C-alpha cells in the first residue's frame, strides 16, 4: 500500500466534522438528543477514518508526511491548503477524534444541546486541521478556528450559578489566547516574509537555513509566546483555571484534551524545526518557565479547594513537563513532550469526565462539599477518580509516567539548556512528588473518609461507557508505550537540527 | 517683483487668524468667517508659489531642464479653492440655518449633547424623550 492513494482522507477528516457542524447548525428542527447522536455518529466516522489514516501512515512510514493533499488557496500570500500526516500528528488526530466521540456520547445523556454539539464538531474539525496543516498560515487559521466555538461552550453552557461568571471566564479565555496568537501571527508572518514560503515541510527541510540568528530568535520569541499562552506556560496560565472551572464537562474535556495540545503541537511542529537557532536561545527560558510551572502549579494544587480548578492547575504542571521536553531540544525530550501531550489529553479528559459527573450530582466542585467517603457512597465513580488521580500523579505503568520520564531524561542530557539542564531535570522530578502530594490530598478528602448520609447515584452505565475508553487508553499507553514511542521516534530526528544528535 | 517671503508671512498671519477665529468664536457664522480666512491663506500661498519658475523651490538652483506645466497650476488651483470655499459656505449656511431652526440660536455651545463627555449627554436620547413624555 505504498504510493499516493487515499489523498482524499485528510480533507474529508477535516471537513466532515465542520460540515456536520454546519448541517446541525442550519437544521433547527432536530431534537437536541438526536443532534447529539448525530454528532456521535459523525465523530465515530471521523474516528474510523482517522484510524484508517493512521494505519496508512504507519504502513507508509511515520517518518515523513503521508497522505498529502494540497490545493492553492491564497496564492498572493503563498498560502496553500495543504494537509499531511506523520508520526507527530497521527496520535493527536486520533486523540481528537476519540474525544469528539466521547464528548458527543456524553452529550446524548447529559443536558444535550444541538448547538453544543455544533461547537464540539467545530472544535474537532479545527483541531484536526491544525494537526494536519502543512502551511504556516493555514496552521494559524486552523489554530484560531477553535477559539470561538470554545468561547461559546464556556460562555453559554458554563456553570452559571454566579451571574456573569461564565461570560467572564469565556472572555478571559478568548482574549488571552487571542492576544497570544496575534503575537504568534507576527512571528509566523516574519518567517514567511523572510523565507518566502509558508510550506511547513519545505521550511522544516531548510531547518532555519537562510534565516539569520537574530531573525530566528525574534520569530521564535513571538511564536513561543503565542503558543505558550495556549499551552499554557507559567506565568501565562491564569486563563486556564477559570475556564476549566466554569466550562461544562464537554468544554473542560475538549479544552484539556484538544485545545491545550494545539500549543505544544505548534512548538514541536513549527518552533523547534523551523527556527532551530532561535529556539536554542529561547529554550533555556522555556525550560525555566516550564520547571517553575511544574512546581508552582503543584504547590497551588496543594491548597486548592475547588476540584475542577485543581485539575486545571494540574494541567499546568503536566504541560510544564511537555514544555520541558520541548525545551530540551533532544529527541528523547521531544518524544517525551509528544507522549506527555497525548497522555495528558487522555488522563485529564478522564478526570474532567469524573469531576463533571461528581459536579452533576452535588452541584458543586468544592472539595469539602463533594467529600468525603466517595469510595463507599459511589464506588464506581470513586474508583474512576482514584484511577485518574493515580494516573495524574504519574504512576509508572500508566500513560503520564512515560512522558514525564522522557521529558526529564531529555532535559538531563540536553545541551540546549546549558548549565541548567540537570537542575531542571531534578526539580521537574521533584515536581512529581508534589503531584503525588496533591492528588493524595484529593483522595484523602474526597475518596476516603467516613461517608456522610445523603447518597448520590453511582456512575451510570452510560457514564462508565463514556469513560472506559479513556481508562483503557491510559493503561494501554502506560504498559505498552512502544507503538506511540515508535511513531515519534523517527520523526523527531527530522525535526531537530543535525538529526537531533546528542553530543 | 516682491520677495516671496512677504506673501508667505501674510499667508501665515491669515492662517493664524483663521485658526483663531475657528477656535475662539462660539458663534457659527463667525467661525465660518475664520474658516474663510484660513482658505484664503492657502490661496495666497498657492498664488505666491506659482510665481516661482518651473520646478518650484526644488529647481531654484538648477537653471535649465525644468518642465513647465502649461495649465499654470498655482492660479488654477486658487480658482478651484475659491469655488470649493463657495460650495462650503453654501452647505455651511444651510446647516447653520438648520441649527437655528432647531435651537433658535447659532451658538455652538447650544448643541453639545452628542458629545459623550458633555453635561447634556444622554445615551439614548429618543428613548429618554419618550420616557419623559
Amino acid at each position, binding site marked *: 500500500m505504498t504510493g499516493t492513494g487515499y489523498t482524499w482522507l485528510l480533507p474529508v477528516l477535516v471537513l466532515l466534522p465542520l460540515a456536520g457542524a454546519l448541517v446541525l447548525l442550519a437544521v433547527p428542527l432536530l431534537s437536541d438528543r438526536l443532534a447529539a447522536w448525530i454528532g456521535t455518529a459523525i465523530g465515530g466516522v471521523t474516528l474510523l477514518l482517522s484510524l484508517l489514516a493512521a494505519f496508512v501512515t504507519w504502513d507508509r512510514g511515520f517518518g515523513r508526511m503521508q497522505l498529502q493533499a494540497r490545493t492553492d488557496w491564497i496564492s498572493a500570500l503563498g498560502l496553500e491548503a495543504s494537509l499531511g500526516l506523520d508520526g507527530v500528528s497521527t496520535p493527536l488526530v486520533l486523540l481528537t477524534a476519540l474525544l469528539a466521540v466521547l464528548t458527543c456520547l456524553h452529550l446524548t445523556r447529559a443536558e444535550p444541546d444541538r448547538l453544543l454539539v455544533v461547537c464540539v464538531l467545530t472544535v474537532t474539525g479545527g483541531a484536526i486541521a491544525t494537526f494536519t496543516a502543512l502551511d504556516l498560515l493555514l496552521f494559524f487559521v486552523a489554530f484560531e478556528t477553535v477559539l470561538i466555538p470554545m468561547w461559546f461552550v464556556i460562555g453559554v453552557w458554563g456553570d452559571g450559578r454566579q451571574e456573569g461568571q461564565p461570560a467572564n471566564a469565556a472572555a478571559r479565555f478568548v482574549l488571552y489566547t487571542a492576544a497570544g496568537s496575534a503575537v504568534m501571527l507576527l512571528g509566523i508572518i516574519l518567517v514567511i516574509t523572510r523565507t518566502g514560503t509558508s510550506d511547513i515541510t519545505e521550511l522544516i527541510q531548510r531547518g532555519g537555513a537562510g534565516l539569520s540568528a537574530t531573525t530566528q530568535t525574534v520569530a521564535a520569541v513571538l511564536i513561543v509566546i503565542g503558543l505558550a499562552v495556549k499551552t499554557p506556560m507559567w506565568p501565562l496560565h491564569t486563563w486556564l483555571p477559570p475556564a476549566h472551572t466554569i466550562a461544562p464537562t464537554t468544554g473542560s474535556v475538549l479544552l484539556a484534551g484538544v485545545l491545550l495540545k494545539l500549543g505544544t503541537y505548534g512548538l514541536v511542529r513549527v518552533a523547534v524545526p523551523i527556527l532551530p537557532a532561535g529556539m536554542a536561545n529561547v529554550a533555556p527560558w522555556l525550560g525555566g518557565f516550564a520547571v517553575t510551572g511544574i512546581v508552582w502549579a503543584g504547590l497551588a494544587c496543594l*491548597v486548592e479547594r475547588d476540584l475542577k480548578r485543581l485539575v486545571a492547575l494540574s494541567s499546568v504542571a503536566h504541560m510544564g513537563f511537555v514544555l520541558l521536553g520541548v525545551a530540551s531540544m533532544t529527541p*528523547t525530550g521531544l518524544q517525551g513532550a509528544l507522549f506527555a501531550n497525548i497522555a495528558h489529553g487522555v488522563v485529564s479528559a478522564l478526570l474532567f469526565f469524573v469531576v463533571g459527573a461528581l459536579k452533576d450530582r452535588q452541584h458543586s466542585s468544592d472539595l469539602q462539599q463533594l467529600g468525603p467517603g466517595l*469510595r463507599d457512597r459511589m464506588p464506581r465513580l470513586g474508583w474512576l477518580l482514584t484511577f485518574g488521580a493515580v494516573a495524574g500523579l504519574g504512576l509508572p505503568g500508566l500513560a503520564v*509516567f512515560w512522558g514525564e520520564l522522557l521529558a526529564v*531524561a531529555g532535559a538531563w542530557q540536553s545541551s540546549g539548556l546549558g548549565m541548567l539542564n540537570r537542575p531542571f531535570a531534578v526539580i521537574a522530578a521533584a515536581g512529581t512528588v508534589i503531584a503525588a502530594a496533591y492528588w493524595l490530598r484529593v483522595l484523602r478528602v474526597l475518596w476516603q473518609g467516613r461517608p456522610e448520609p445523603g447518597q448520590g447515584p453511582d456512575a451510570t452505565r452510560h457514564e462508565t461507557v463514556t469513560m472506559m475508553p479513556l481508562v483503557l487508553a491510559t493503561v494501554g499507553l502506560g504498559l505498552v508505550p512502544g507503538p506511540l514511542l515508535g511513531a515519534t521516534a523517527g520523526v523527531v530526528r527530522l525535526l531537530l537540527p543535525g538529526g537531533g544528535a546528542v553530543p | 517683483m516682491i520677495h516671496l517671503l512677504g506673501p508667505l508671512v501674510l499667508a501665515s498671519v491669515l492662517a493664524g487668524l483663521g485658526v483663531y477665529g475657528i477656535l475662539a468664536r462660539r458663534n457659527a457664522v463667525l467661525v465660518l468667517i475664520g474658516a474663510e480666512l484660513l482658505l484664503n491663506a492657502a490661496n495666497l500661498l498657492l498664488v505666491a508659489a506659482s510665481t516661482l519658475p518651473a520646478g518650484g523651490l526644488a529647481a531654484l538652483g538648477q537653471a535649465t531642464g525644468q518642465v513647465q506645466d502649461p495649465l499654470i497650476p498655482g492660479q488654477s488651483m486658487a480658482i478651484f479653492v475659491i469655488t470649493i470655499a463657495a460650495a462650503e459656505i453654501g452647505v455651511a449656511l444651510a446647516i447653520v440655518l438648520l441649527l437655528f431652526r432647531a435651537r433658535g440660536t447659532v451658538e455652538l455651545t447650544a448643541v453639545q449633547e452628542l458629545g*459623550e463627555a458633555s453635561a447634556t449627554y444622554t445615551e439614548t436620547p429618543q428613548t429618554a424623550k419618550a420616557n419623559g413624555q
Partner: protein
Amino acid sequence: MTESAALLAVLLPAAAAVFGLLTKRSWAADWAVLGSAGALIAAIAELTLVSTDGPVSSIGLLGSAQLGSITIGLDLRSDQLSAVVAVMVALVALCVQIYSTAYFQGEGTAETPTRYRAYAATVSMFTAAMMLVIHAGDLVLLLIGWEVMGLASYLLVGHHSERAAARAAAVKAFLITRTGDIGLVLAVVVLIAGAGTTSIAELNRAAAENEIGHGTAVTAVLLLLAAVVGKSAQFPLHTWLPDAMEGPTPVSALIHAATMVVAGVFLVARMLPLFLTAPGALQIGAVLASVSMVGAALAALAQTDLKRLLAYSTISQVAYMLAAVCVASDRELGSGDPVGLAAPGVAHLLSHGAFKALLFLAAGCVVHIVGSTALADMGGLWRTHRSLAVLFGIGLLGLAGVPPFGGFWSKEAVLGAAEEAAHAGTWVGWMVLVAGVATIVLTGLYAGRAWSIVAMGRTQLSPAPHHLPAAMVFPLYLLAVPSVAFGVLLLWPPEVLHGLHIQPGTAITGALLAICAVAAALAAPRLGTADIATALPARAQTVLLDAFGFDRVIRVLVVRPVFWLATVVKAAEHDVIDAYVRATGPTTTIAGKLLRLAQTGLASAYAAWVFVGAVVITVAGMALV
C-alpha cells in the same frame, strides 16, 4: 518453559486482580487465593527450571520502547535470585490471601465496611507488581512494578480509610517512598544519558567491564540508593513504616514486613555489579543501614503497640540485609563474584520474610482475639492459646536469632560478611559488625519483652478460649516450617546462596548474646519489672517511643515549609500573576473613560484637535527628515 513459568508468576496474580474486580463479588476470594497459589506453583516451577536449565535473560512482556537513540526492552528475566525470592513472595502472598479470607469475614458494618473485594484485588495487584520487580530485566520495567507496589501499599494502608490515622499513614507511606523513588527515576534518566541502556543485565555487564563512566556510575548508584532507602524504610526515610501499621495486619505481614520493604535490598543485590563500581555510595548505604539497625531496635524496645514494635524490628532487620550487601565492596571474596557477595543479604531476606510474616500473622490472630493492638491489652496467650503462642514464639526466636531457628543462620551470615570486611581493615566493616552485634542484644531484649508481655503476663481475656478460624491458623503453620527449618537450606544451598560463610566466632558470640538478651527480657518479670522497657528512665522511654522525634523534625523541616510555600504560591497566583491579568479590565476602563473626556460635543473643540494634531505631526515630520 522457564519463560512461561516466569510470565505466569507475574501474570497470574495480575489476572486475579482484574478478574476479582470484574466478576461476581462472591468469587473474589477464590480468584485471590487461586492467583497467589498459581504464582507460587509457577515460582517453584521457575526455581526448579532455572536451577537445571540456567537463567533466561530476556522474556518478552510489554514489547520495547524506542527512546531517542536507545531502545528499552520491557522484558522479564529469570535467574535463581528472582526465582528464590519469587517463591518466598508467592508463599507469603498465598498465606496472606488464605488468612485474609477469614480475617475479612462478612461485609462489615456501614461504619467499618470490610471492602474485601477491593482488598483482595489490591493484594493480587501487589503480588503481581512485586513479581514484576523481581523478574524485571529492565530498570524501567522494575520501576513500574516498584511504584505499583507503592500504590498498592497506599491503598492497603488506607484500607480502613474511615479512620483518620489510616488516611494519614497511607499518604505518608506513599509520599515518603515516592520521594525516594525520584532517585530511581533519576537513576534511569542518568543511565539513559550516561550508559545508553537501562537493561539490568547490560548495565551489570558494562559495570563489571568498567564501561560506564565513573561520574555516571556514582550518580546513578547514589540515586538508586535513595530509592532503596525509601522503599526499605531506612534512615532517614523510615518514618512511614511504623505508621503504615494502620493497615490491616495481613497487609503488614505481606507488604510491610516480608516483601515490599525488602525490595530495596533486592534491588541492590540485583544490581550489585553496578553498585560495586561506586564503593563510596555503598559505604553511605552501610552507614545508613547501621544507624537504622540500632536506632530502630532501640525504638522497638520501648513501643507500647505490638504492630509498631514489629514495624521497628522490620526496619532493624532490613537494615541487616542492606548492611550485608553494602559491605560487599569491602569484602575480599576470591572471585569478587557479585552473586556470592549478595548472598548473606539475600539469605536474611528470605529467612526474615518467613519469620516476620509468621510474626505478623500471629500478631493478627492475637489482635483478633484481644481486639486491640496495644501491648497493654495483651497477656496470657500461653495459657489461652498455646499453639498460637508457640507459633508466635517461633517467630520471635527467629527474629532474635536464637539457634537453630532460621534467623540465626542468616543473621550470622550477615555478621560473617561484616567481619570479613572488618578483617579487610575497613571502618565500614567494623561499624557494621559493631552495630550488628549491638542490635543482636537489643533484638533479643525486645523479642523477649514481646514474649513476656503477650504470652506470659496477666490474662486479660475471659477464660473461654476464643476460637480461631482454620484459614487463619493454617498459614501460620505453613510459615513456621521455613522459619524453623531455614538452616536446612544451608546444607544444600542453591547457587544464589553459595557465598554464605558463617564464621564460628561471630556465630557463637551472636548466639550467646541473643540467648542472654532474650533470657534477660524473660527474666525481667521475675525480677520485679513487668516489662524491661519500664526499667529505662522515663525520659528515655518517651524518646524511644517517639523514635527520637524524627517525625517532628520532618514536619518542621519539610511539611510545614511546603505548605507555607503553597499558601504563598496561591496568594501570589492571585495577587501577583493574575493581578496583572485582572488589572487589564480596570485599566482599559479607566483609559477609555479618560479618553472619552475629550468628547465634549463642542464642534470647534474638535476642530481644535485637528489643528493641534496637524501642528504636532507636522513638527514631528519635519524633525524626522
